């Protein structure tokens, strides 16, 4: 057979739920240890992996709580197995200390957070993007972390694979910040396998032991600030300061490589929508609606009929978005904040609107980066995703007011 030619086996398509795609991708990426605790809306991941992981020759364990799950995946990684856990809101809060531990000991591991509405028990079955700051600042102390935000089932699959790749390369925990909408939707996806001869990436360390356990290297995994041999330096101020700088800069110095920001219709755009996660989907549809891009998935006609019932005829007649030149900046790696990339993409627009399913958190970062532009926050709490028309209506409103 011709090795160049893509073989039938290499490309599988399937209709999967977001959570299932995440589970499949984990196994595909070489994850062989999963510890978890059931929590809505991430339970499908643990359910699927309970069998699949063992079938793939890996280890599955249902721990007594999320703290245990987060700790055991770190232990397992030092035993030499790529590891992952999946959770949601309250469980993610419990994991924070372990995430800090993984960051300080430079343990590569993947933590999936399928966001639900909070705070506290909140809205177990509804979606939100309220953990966007917790994903970045959740654990105490200063550290940098990589957070990926999928907006479709395909991205749930691809980003899970990328999360493992990034975590191994930068020796850091990576958060896959999904949400209930993406986790529970079903879509057709293409499952690409890893290239057969994967080159082990050169790993970037700050200051920690490098060898896994039981290799005769006498690795010392230490939660206190430590030197290359794992000896504590927490009581020495200058050395500790250096450690913090090193552990942060190994991520911030490589933002260009990590950052993944997509642009759609930005060439001639006057207004940009900046979105991430599931809200990026409706933002995309908003653009298609305004630009008249035909897509089966944009149910514009249905929307107009629905509008007739909901808002009456005059409202529907008014909503003509064709004069709006809207573009989309879709942020896939929300942290580390891809400041330069966003500035570059947004350089020609006057106005940026940031719809998100929280009280307008990410908008603050965007406003800081695009200080010379009009940045409008479009928060929405309650668990419902923004509709394309809602976003466009808001843009119309702002453009008129200007």
């Amino acid at each position, binding site marked *: 057979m011709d090795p160049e030619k893509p073989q039938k086996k290499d490309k599988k398509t399937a209709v999967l739920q977001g959570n299932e795609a995440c589970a499949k991708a984990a196994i595909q990426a070489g994850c062989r240890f999963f510890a978890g605790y059931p929590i809505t809306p991430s339970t499908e991941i643990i359910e699927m992996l309970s069998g699949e992981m063992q079938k793939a020759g890996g280890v599955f364990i249902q*721990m007594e709580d999320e703290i*245990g799950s987060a700790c055991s995946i770190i*232990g397992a990684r030092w035993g030499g197995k790529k590891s992952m856990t999946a959770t949601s809101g309250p469980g993610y809060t419990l994991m924070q200390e372990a995430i800090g531990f993984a960051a300080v000991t430079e343990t590569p591991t993947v933590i999936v957070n399928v966001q639900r509405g909070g705070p506290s028990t909140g809205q177990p079955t509804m979606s939100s993007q309220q953990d966007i700051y917790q994903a970045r600042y959740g654990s105490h102390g200063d550290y940098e972390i990589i957070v990926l935000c999928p907006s479709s089932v395909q991205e749930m699959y691809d980003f899970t694979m990328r999360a493992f790749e990034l975590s191994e390369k930068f020796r850091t925990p990576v958060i896959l910040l999904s949400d209930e909408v993406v986790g529970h939707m079903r879509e057709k996806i293409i499952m690409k396998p890893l290239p057969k001869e994967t080159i082990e990436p050169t790993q970037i360390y700050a200051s920690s032991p490098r060898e896994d356990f*039981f290799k005769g290297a*006498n690795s010392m995994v230490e939660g206190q600030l430590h030197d290359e041999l794992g000896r504590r330096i927490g009581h020495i101020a200058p050395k500790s300061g250096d450690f913090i700088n090193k552990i942060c800069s190994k991520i911030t110095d490589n933002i260009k490589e990590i950052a993944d920001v997509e642009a759609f219709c930005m060439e001639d755009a006057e207004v940009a929508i900046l979105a991430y996660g599931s809200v990026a989907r409706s933002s995309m549809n908003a653009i298609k609606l305004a630009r008249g891009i035909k897509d089966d998935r944009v149910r514009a006609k249905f929307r107009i009929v629905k509008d007739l019932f909901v808002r009456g005829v005059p409202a529907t007649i008014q909503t003509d978005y064709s004069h709006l030149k809207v573009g989309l900046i879709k942020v896939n790696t929300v942290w580390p904040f891809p400041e330069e990339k966003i500035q570059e993409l947004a350089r020609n627009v006057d106005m940026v609107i940031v719809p998100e399913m929280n009280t307008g958190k990410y908008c603050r970062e965007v406003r800081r980066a695009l200080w010379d532009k009009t940045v409008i926050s479009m928060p929405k709490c309650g668990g419902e995703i923004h509709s394309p028309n809602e976003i466009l209506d808001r843009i119309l409103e702002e453009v008129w007011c200007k």
Partner: protein
Amino acid sequence: MNELYEKYIKKESLPTLFCPGCGNGIVQFAAIKAFEKMGIKDDLACVSGIGCSSWIPCYFKMDVMHTMHGRALPFAEGLKLSRPDKKILVFSGDGDCLAIGGNHLIHAASRNIDLTVIEINNYIYGMTGGQKSPATPEGSVTKTSPFGSYDEPIDGCSLVAAAGGTYVARWTTAHPVQLEKAIAEGIRHKGFSFIEVLTQCPVQAGKNIFGEKSPVAMMARYKEMTYIYKEGMEIPEGKVRIGKIKHDTSRKEYTEKVLQKLEEKNIKKGQSNG
């Protein structure tokens, strides 16, 4: 330096941060002697949590994980499950193991996963300066129980035995030889082993609980306040039982159970394809 110390202790990490007269050194040396007798250095990793006693393995020339407060057990479980062929030794204090890590202890014991836990019980939170721990005797005046502790102490050995741990023993720092044997036996035992060691903390527990600051006097006291159970003996009142408390080889170990099930289902361990 002692020959064994030279072999097992990282010189560059010394001095230890233990106070003069601390019992941790005795436990440390008992463990080293057990390793040497078993010749297990390369097939063993140590995991510990936070507290004075959790610093014991940090000086070892072997693979060591010094983790979060109370979470040594889940870390150790992850490590064990990813490398079922190796042995894991967990060092934990009374606060680390019974208070903040109590839930993990119950579940690890109930799984009967092959770990050996050495719970170093000094009856107090030493590192933070002498506060009440779950093992502190009722009525003791400590930094956080100025009118005497209201809580009845938790007995770690009974807890683990009841939860399903299959090897349970208790010794004191006044019994270093027996302790060494128990550690070796615990490591050899396939299943969850729990060894409690009563150690002297002359600085905090000595001052606050026992009213004597001499480590020697404290060790003598431990000898006095304990008894070794013999079949049919009358149980002395107010004394703590030491020696081997439970040794059950009939229960299957967790990783063995997993492997057996996978074999039944015709799934080979280590088989790798997406």
